């Protein structure tokens, strides 16, 4: 006797059950038919002997020759038996990096965050073991930028620090679990990995890490289930069949219940250079430092590397000088300034011609004198990314 059989043709409950099963089987599965599903088939032959009445015979895997009196093929009746098998447990997974970019960090940063996605492409709910590894020095950068840089340092304390469901359903995550619980077929989880960056790490350093996920048995608990192994296949049992592709750092490659991807930390501490110069113009047109002579101050600011956010330049006026009202101007030579910085309103790209600014505090030009701080020039540059170069100019008279 095989599956899906109703032994009498009038057993309504049984037939209803079969009908429900048939309806359910119409559902389409993106990840495929669930493991354990019985796929069955029953053929029917009708024929006559010498033009006599039609006879019906239904199939069986070993061969059936009994005449089916009611002409309806039902497994178990008149020698008919379904030809069937069970769909096996396809183990398939895909690990991808959260974006296609390096993760920019600064030296000494703790718990620098990067993310990966783990997708269950199989047809069964599985647990997934996770492991983070530092790759060897010299490993080529897998991501777009900076293309010329290879791995030259390791982050420390690299660990999975959070797992959240992105699509579908997964089991309970307990803080610092290094595995995903009960990730259903077609579901994907976002795995957060954190590493600490050494304090003295030089700018331009690159550390490549990998996240490897290994499919495990869903053990119906919040612990990591046991290993999955391929076994000798039979028609009526559900065996594990590996179907995964090769990841970046798999132990063996394709069909090993394992998949992996890489990400990289790129050290890019902002390097800001500020240079201030002064020139004097006396009433006679010379450069003698004397009362009523006008001093022109120039502050050159440049960012050679990295990103500075909320950049503010302040310069207190020297003693025995008086600020010359509305004498501030700014020249933007290179770079892009976000957040309505002093080089313009909103995001602008240099070069921009020298622009005069007013002294009023909290007006639209992001520049003031004696407003934010007493007797001090304040310039808000906002968020800037290297390379950046701009020059602040203002004037004062000697008392």
């Amino acid at each position, binding site marked *: 006797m095989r599956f899906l059989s109703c032994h009498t043709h009038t057993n309504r409950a049984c037939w209803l059950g079969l009908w429900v099963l048939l309806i359910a089987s119409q559902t389409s599965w993106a990840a495929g038919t669930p493991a354990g599903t019985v796929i069955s088939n029953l053929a*029917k032959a009708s*024929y006559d002997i010498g033009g006599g009445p039609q*006879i019906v015979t239904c199939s069986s895997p070993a061969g059936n020759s009994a005449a089916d009196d009611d002409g309806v093929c039902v497994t178990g009746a008149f020698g008919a038996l379904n030809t069937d098998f069970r769909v096996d447990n396809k183990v398939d997974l895909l690990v991808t990096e959260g974006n296609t970019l390096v993760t920019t960090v600064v030296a000494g940063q703790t718990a620098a965050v990067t993310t990966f996605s783990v997708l269950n492409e199989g047809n069964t709910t599985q647990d997934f073991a996770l492991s983070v590894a530092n790759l060897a020095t010299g490993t080529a950068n897998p991501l777009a930028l900076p293309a010329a840089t290879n791995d030259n340092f390791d982050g420390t304390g690299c660990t999975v620090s959070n797992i959240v469901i992105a699509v579908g359903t997964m089991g309970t995550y307990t803080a610092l679990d290094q595995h995903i619980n009960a990730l259903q077929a077609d579901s994907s989880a976002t795995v957060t990995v954190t590493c600490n960056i050494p304090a003295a790490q030089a700018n331009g350093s690159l550390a490549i890490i990998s996240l490897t996920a290994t499919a495990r048995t869903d053990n119906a608990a919040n612990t990591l289930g046991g290993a999955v192994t391929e076994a000798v296949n039979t028609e009526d049992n559900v065996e594990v069949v590996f179907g995964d592709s090769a990841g970046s750092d798999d132990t063996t490659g394709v069909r090993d219940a394992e998949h992996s991807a890489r990400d990289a930390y790129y050290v890019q501490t902002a390097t800001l250079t500020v240079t201030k110069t002064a020139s004097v113009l006396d009433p006679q047109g010379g450069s003698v430092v004397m009362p009523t002579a006008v001093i022109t101050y120039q502050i050159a600011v440049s960012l050679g590397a990295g990103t500075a956010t909320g950049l503010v330049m302040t310069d207190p006026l020297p003693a025995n000088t008086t600020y010359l009202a509305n004498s501030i101007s700014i020249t933007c030579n290179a770079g892009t300034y976000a957040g309505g910085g002093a080089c313009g309103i909103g995001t602008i790209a240099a070069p921009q011609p020298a622009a005069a600014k007013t002294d009023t505090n909290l007006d639209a030009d992001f520049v003031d004198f004696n407003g934010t701080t007493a007797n001090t020039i304040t310039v808000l540059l906002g968020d800037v990314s290297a390379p950046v170069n701009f020059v602040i100019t203002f004037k004062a008279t000697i008392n």
Partner: protein
Amino acid sequence: MRIVNLLLTTTLFALLGSLSSGAQAADQGAIKLTSIAQTEVEVVAKGGKKTLKRTPAEKVVPGTEVIYTTTFENIIDKPVGHIVIDNPIPNDSEYKAGSAFGKNCEILFSVDGGKTFGHAEELKVKGNDGKSRNALPREYTNIRWTYKGQLAAKKSGEVGFRATVK
């Protein structure tokens, strides 16, 4: 699983008593109908020559192509006529275009669960826009083979198709 079903069947037979045993005491027909499900695996011989070997459908996951073969054998000593074989596309499976075979048979398909049959190009289904369109092979629900002429005594024929597990 088969063992469990066997036990269940035995129990049901006991419960159903005479009704069940009466239904099972069937007359012998003239055709022995055998259906098998197989998969193909690539076998590389010593010289590197690759051949496809058929095995029972043991290793089947979504995407696997399964070959269903039905053999009909005339087991009496007289010819048998008007042989029609009907076979539904199995659950959770999609018929593979052009895969139905059957020597000396007319092959028709159904897209309505076997109520009506037609040649592949005649089959229509209602599309999402409500308009009738040609049916896709994966939408077939049943296949019917009509054997031309009579099947002589002790002779047999073979029909079948391929379907991919969804």
